[in-house]
């Protein structure tokens, strides 16, 4: 497992498109959304700034790394490497787990670079070094579960649908399932299966949108409210747990894909 993780990490980090695509998104976010970024940075409290930043990162960067990871498992077959690897004594489950952890670690690197870069810049500019602590907490409770959830599905789903189609579906799902206001149309936003991390963001880190608006829990009149239990610390941990269980199930499904 460690072997596969190490080499997958190495190969993914050498992928130029990883750095280019995530870099472009960060630059675009800073340029196109400069007003919002300035608003985020101008906030007086380091907590609000770091959590707003985490939310911004988690809305856009998973779109890029989800698409980038879509070929990681199927490419073993496309390149013709799968037969060589399958003929080794190494356990296929351990190899898959290693691949998963390796590619997740690889996409975590630029995400961490962008986010902690922002945190350090803010801390130095404002002199509020508590921002670094909040950044660490948001990274662990919000950004990391999203990487693990997206990584698992980006590896597994292209085994049953072509990778290009997965990318299209994934981008659609991501914005539909995370960014749409639940009272406008049925969506997974604000629910415990929202990988953007609404529940932990609100209940474990105490985040509120300006004006006190919530981002987790039941929305009056919205469909799928059974997926939006009352937002509490327990349901926040449950949300993280559900994401990790779904990721594990996706990987388990990928590991038992039928052999001819």
């Amino acid at each position, binding site marked *: 497992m460690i072997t596969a993780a190490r080499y997958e990490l190495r190969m993914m980090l050498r*992928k130029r498109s990883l750095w280019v695509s995530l870099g472009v998104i960060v630059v675009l976010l800073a340029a196109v959304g400069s007003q919002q970024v300035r608003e985020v940075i101008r906030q007086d409290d380091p907590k609000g700034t770091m959590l707003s930043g985490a939310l911004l990162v988690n809305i856009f960067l998973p779109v890029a790394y989800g698409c980038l990871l879509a070929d990681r498992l199927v490419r073993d077959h496309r390149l013709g490497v799968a037969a060589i690897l399958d003929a*080794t004594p190494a356990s296929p489950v351990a*190899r898959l787990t290693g691949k998963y952890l390796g590619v997740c670690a690889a996409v975590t690197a630029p995400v961490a670079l962008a986010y902690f870069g922002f945190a350090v810049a803010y801390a130095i500019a404002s002199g509020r070094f508590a921002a670094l602590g909040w950044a660490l907490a948001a990274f662990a409770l919000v950004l990391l579960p999203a990487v693990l959830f997206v990584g698992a599905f980006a590896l597994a789903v292209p085994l049953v649908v072509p990778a290009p189609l997965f990318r299209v579906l994934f981008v659609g799902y991501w914005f539909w399932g995370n960014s749409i206001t639940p009272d406008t149309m049925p969506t997974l936003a604000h629910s415990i299966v929202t990988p953007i991390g609404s529940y932990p963001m609100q209940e474990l880190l105490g985040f509120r949108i300006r004006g006190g608006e919530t981002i987790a829990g039941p929305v009056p009149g919205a469909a799928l409210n059974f997926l939006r239990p009352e937002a509490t610390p327990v349901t926040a941990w449950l949300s993280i747990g559900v994401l990790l269980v779904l990721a594990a199930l996706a990987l388990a499904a990928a590991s038992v894909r039928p052999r*001819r």
Partner: protein
Amino acid sequence: MRIDIDRLTKRYRGGVTALDGLSLEVPTGMFGLLGANGAGKTTLMRILAGLLRPTGGSVRVGEHDVTTRAGRAAVRRVLGYLPQELGVYPDLSAREFLDYVALLKGIDDRTERRRRVGEVLEIVALAGDAGRKLKGYSGGMRRRVGIAQALLAGPRLLIVDEPTAGLDPEERIRFRTLLAQLAGDRTVLLSTHIVDDVAQTCRELAVLASGALVFRGTVEELTSRASDRVWSVITAGPAPTGGTIVSAVPHAAGMRYRVVAPVSPAAGAETVEPNLEDGYLALVK
């Protein structure tokens, strides 16, 4: 390491029968497997390598039963496999790729792994290019990386599927010589549709057609199947129509045809000494 195959059957979804009750014994040493495309060679290789499960029958590799999970796992520990569709990770160097495969093969000690990787790179004459990314390698160089990874853990069974496909003549000769040298006390199963590769390296061989065994014996025995059935015809007229034309070479008097046929295919035809290719054609046509 001896291989015993008994009434082996493989049916794919959709009803395609790739192997149809195949029984075969493969002894230690170099052994050739010939057959047209679609004869079932690759399916057999993949079953022996533990990558496919048979539909019926039994396969024993040494003392291991390949139809069981434990047997397949045991075979993988003594196996070196070069698949027909060979691929590599383009973003790794040859040394890194081999290091990765060596780790997967259980060579955990770093010093030992470096030594083995260095050895196999020397064997396939790639030591000088080992640091280059594989995306810059030619097809022949990639094939050599393929054989290098197969040799990493000192396999007792080496399965090579169409290893010389796509190689230039010089590389082909070099490659098959290497395989023959590797045979020694291990079993090397060479699957190919290039008859000359078997003629130059194997003493014994089997021929598959439509998933069944149609010949098992020595190279001489298969060659003798064409005795008194190989003809040389020189003509300026139309090509002979009886039998199978093996070759057509321009000649001062027109064309010289080499024909495998049970009776003289044209007036003036002379019998010539058969080779393995003639024997193979006499068998399957």
